[in-house]
C-alpha cells in the first residue's frame, strides 16, 4: 500500500522537522541511515494483508492516522506515580517518556566496571564509536516498513554495553511511558544492546501508558548483539492502553555458542505486532523464544517470529502461549529459515492457545524453509478451551467457578513463566501477568508453581 498522500505529507513534514532540529548533533553516518530508511519507507509504504507477512493483521487504522512526534510535551514530567513500574532488584532503570530519556525518572546505581547503561541519544552526541559500528547494521529496513520507519526517526532509546567477561546478574529495566497527548502521537524508541564475549546481561523492556487514551503509535526496535559465548536474557512486557498501536522488533545477532533467551509478554494495546528475529550466526548458539499473549475485547495481538539458522549446530526453541477472550484475535507466525551451511540445526516450535469465547480467534502458521540437508525441525500448534474435566475437579474441591477458571489460566500462563530464569525479571513479569489475569498476589510466592517436576526445563519442553 502506498502511504496515503495526506499521511505521507505528515510523515514528510515530521521527518524534515526532525532532521532540521537535530542537524547539529547528528553525525553524517546517522543522517545517511535515516535518509535511506525514510526513502525505503516512502517507496514501499505500509504493508497490506496481501503481503504474506501481514496476512492476518490489517494495519489500515495505523496507515490512515496522522501521527506526529510529541515535541510539545516532551519535557513535561508525568504527574502519575511511577511506583507501580519499579522493578525490585533491578541494576538500573531507564525511563523514557514519549520516547525521550528522562534522567530525573531514571536510576542507574553502581554498575560493575565495563557496563554502560545510558541514553542512545547521549551516546550518539558523544560520538561513541560502537554506536556507529553497530546501529542499523542488523535490522532489516528493506524487509519491514516499520523497521524502516523506526530507523528514519532514530533519536533516542537505550544503549547497553557489557564488556567481555563481565557478568551483570541483576536486570536492567527499560521503561517506555506513553503519555497520550491531545492528538495521535508516534514514538520510535531505538535500543542497542551489546553484550560482548563471555559476558552476561538481562534486559527488560516495558511499554506502558498513562493519561488519556488517545490513539498512539509506539514503533520500537532493538538490536541485540551477543558475542561469543555471551549470555543474554531479553524480556519485553507490552501493556499499553486499549487505543494504542504497539509495534516492536527485536533483532538478535548471535555469535558462536552465544545463548539468548527472548521472553515476550503481550497484555495490552489495541493492535500489537511483536517481531522477534534472531540470527544464529555462529556455531553452537542457542536461542529460546518464549512468549505469552493475553487478549480480550477487540485486541489484536500478532507475533511474528523469524528464526534464522545461519551456522551449524545451533538450537532454537519457540514456545508461545495465547489466551484469547471476547472478540480478540491472536496471530502466531513462526518462520524458521535454515540456511545451506547450517547443518545439525535443531529447531522446535510450539504454539498453544486457549480460546475462552466463541468469538475469539487465533491464526497460527508455521513456515519452515530448509536449505540444509541434515537438520531437525519440528513444529506444533494446539487450540483448545478450558478443560471441563479440570474445571470440575477444582470445583469439586470447593474452589468457586471463577477462581477455578483463573487457576487454570494461571497454570497455562505459568508454562511461559516456567521457561524464564527465576529472579527479579521473572517476578516482575509474573506480577504483570497476574494483574492482567486478575489473580491476587501471593503472600509467600513459593508454592504456587510446580517446580522440579519432569519436563520443565526449556530444552525438554515441547
Amino acid at each position, binding site marked *: 500500500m502506498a502511504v496515503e498522500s495526506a499521511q505521507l505529507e505528515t510523515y514528510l513534514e515530521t521527518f524534515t522537522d526532525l532532521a532540521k532540529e537535530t542537524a547539529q548533533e547528528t553525525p553524517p553516518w546517522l543522517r545517511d541511515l535515516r535518509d535511506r530508511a525514510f526513502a525505503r519507507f516512502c517507496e514501499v509504504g505500509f504493508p497490506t494483508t496481501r503481503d504474506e507477512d501481514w496476512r492476518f493483521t490489517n494495519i489500515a487504522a495505523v496507515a490512515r492516522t496522522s501521527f506526529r512526534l510529541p515535541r510539545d510535551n516532551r519535557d513535561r514530567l508525568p504527574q502519575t506515580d511511577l511506583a507501580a513500574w519499579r522493578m525490585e532488584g533491578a541494576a538500573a532503570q531507564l525511563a523514557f517518556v514519549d520516547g525521550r530519556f528522562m534522567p530525573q525518572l531514571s536510576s542507574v546505581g553502581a554498575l560493575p566496571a565495563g557496563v554502560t547503561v545510558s541514553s542512545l541519544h547521549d551516546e550518539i552526541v558523544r560520538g561513541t564509536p560502537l554506536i556507529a559500528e553497530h546501529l542499523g547494521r542488523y535490522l532489516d529496513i528493506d524487509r519491514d516498513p516499520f523497521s524502516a520507519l523506526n530507523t528514519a526517526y532514530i533519536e533516542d532509546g537505550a544503549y547497553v554495553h557489557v564488556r567481555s567477561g563481565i557478568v551483570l546478574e541483576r536486570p536492567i529495566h527499560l521503561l517506555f511511558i506513553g503519555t497520550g497527548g491531545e492528538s495521535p502521537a508516534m514514538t520510535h524508541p531505538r535500543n542497542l544492546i551489546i553484550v560482548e564475549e563471555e559476558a552476561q546481561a538481562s534486559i527488560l523492556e516495558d511499554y506502558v501508558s498513562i493519561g488519556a487514551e488517545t490513539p498512539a503509535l509506539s514503533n520500537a526496535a532493538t538490536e541485540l548483539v551477543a558475542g561469543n559465548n555471551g549470555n543474554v536474557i531479553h524480556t519485553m512486557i507490552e501493556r499499553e492502553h486499549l487505543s494504542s498501536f504497539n509495534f516492536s522488533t527485536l533483532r538478535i545477532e548471535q555469535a558462536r555458542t552465544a545463548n539468548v533467551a527472548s521472553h515476550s509478554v503481550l497484555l495490552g494495546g489495541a493492535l500489537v505486532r511483536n517481531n522477534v528475529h534472531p540470527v544464529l550466526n555462529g556455531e553452537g548458539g542457542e536461542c529460546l523464544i518464549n512468549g505469552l499473549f493475553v487478549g480480550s475485547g477487540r485486541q489484536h495481538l500478532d507475533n511474528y517470529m523469524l528464526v534464522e539458522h545461519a551456522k551449524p549446530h545451533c538450537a532454537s526453541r519457540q514456545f508461545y502461549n495465547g489466551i484469547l477472550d471476547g472478540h480478540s484475535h491472536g496471530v502466531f507466525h513462526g518462520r524458521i529459515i535454515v540456511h545451506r551451511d547450517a547443518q545439525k540445526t535443531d529447531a522446535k516450535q510450539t504454539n498453544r492457545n486457549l480460546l475462552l469465547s466463541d468469538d475469539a480467534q487465533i491464526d497460527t502458521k508455521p513456515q519452515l524453509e530448509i536449505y540444509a540437508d541434515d537438520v531437525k525441525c519440528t513444529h506444533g500448534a494446539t487450540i483448545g478451551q478450558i478443560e471441563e474435566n479440570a474445571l470440575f475437579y477444582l470445583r469439586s474441591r470447593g474452589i468457586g467457578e471463577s477462581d477455578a477458571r483463573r487457576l487454570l489460566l494461571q497454570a497455562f500462563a505459568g508454562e511461559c513463566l516456567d521457561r524464564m530464569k527465576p529472579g527479579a525479571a521473572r517476578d516482575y513479569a509474573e506480577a504483570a501477568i497476574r494483574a492482567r489475569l486478575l489473580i491476587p498476589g501471593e503472600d509467600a510466592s513459593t*508454592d504456587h508453581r510446580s517446580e522440579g517436576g519432569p519436563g520443565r526445563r526449556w530444552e525438554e519442553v515441547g
Partner: protein
Amino acid sequence: MIGALAPASLIYPAKSALGNISQAPDSAPGGNRIVSLLEIKNLHVRASGHEILKGIDLAVNAGEVHSIMGPNGSGKSTLAQVLSRRESYEVTGGEILLDGKDLLAMKPDQAACEGVFMAFQYPVEIPGIGNAYFMRTALNAIRKYRGHDELDAIDFLPLFREKLKLLEMDEKMMSRSVNEGFSGGEKKRNEILQMAVLEPRLAILDETDSGLDIDAMRIVAHGVNAMRSPDRAMIVVTHYQRLLNYIVPDFVHVLVDGRIVRSGGAELAHELESRGYGWVEAEARQVAPASA
C-alpha cells in the same frame, strides 16, 4: 431407615484445619425425627438420553461407612458423580438431602464447601498448578465459606506434612503439578490426601481400588480408616470386594440396573465375592421384570 451401628474403628483426626462443620440438628424443629447425614429419596437420573438411576433410596448416618457394589454399568459411578454435583447428569426425579439441605440445588463447589468430597475414579492431571498450592486454595475456599480465616503457606505446611505422612507420600509431591506424571497408585493416594486435608462430612470413594496393587491399596485403606469418625459418613463405590477387606463397611448395597436390589452388612460383600453378581441380577429381574 437403616440403623446406626458403631463403626469398627474410630480414629479421631488429630487436628482439624477446618474448625467445626455445621452439625446436623439432632431433631427437626417441631418433631423428633433423626435427620440422616445423607438422604437420597427416589432418585432418578438420566445421562446421554438414557435413564441410569431408576429410583434410589438410601439413608446414611454420620459415623457409618456404606459400600455400593454392583456390576459394570449398574449406575454406581453415576450415583457418585451426582452426589458430587457433576452437571452433565440430568436429575429427573427425587431428592438428595445433605444434613437436611437440598444437595441438588448446589453447585459442585458449594457441595464441597458443605462437606461433600469425591475421590475420583480417574483423577485429573492439571499441569502448572502445584499440589500444595491447589490443596491450600481448596482448603481456604472451604474455610472462607464456613467463616474461618484463610491459612497462609506457613500455617498450611505442618498440616500438609502430617497428611503426607499418613498416606506415606514423598514431600516432593507438594511441589509437583497436580497428578501430572503420577502413577495410578500415586493418583489414588493423592485423592485420599486431599480428602485428609479437606476433612469432608461425606466422603465418596469412586472405585478407588481399581488399578491398585496390594501395597497401594493398604496405604489408601489405612488413610481412609484413619478418617473414620462419628462426624463423618463414607460411601465406598466398588466393583470388587477386595477393598472391603481393608475398609470394612457397616452396610453393603447392591446396585443393579439403576436400583438398589439388596442391602446387608459386610457379609453381603463376601457373598458377592464367592457367588458373583449373577444371582442378585436374576433376583432383580424377578422383582422388576418390566424394567428393561
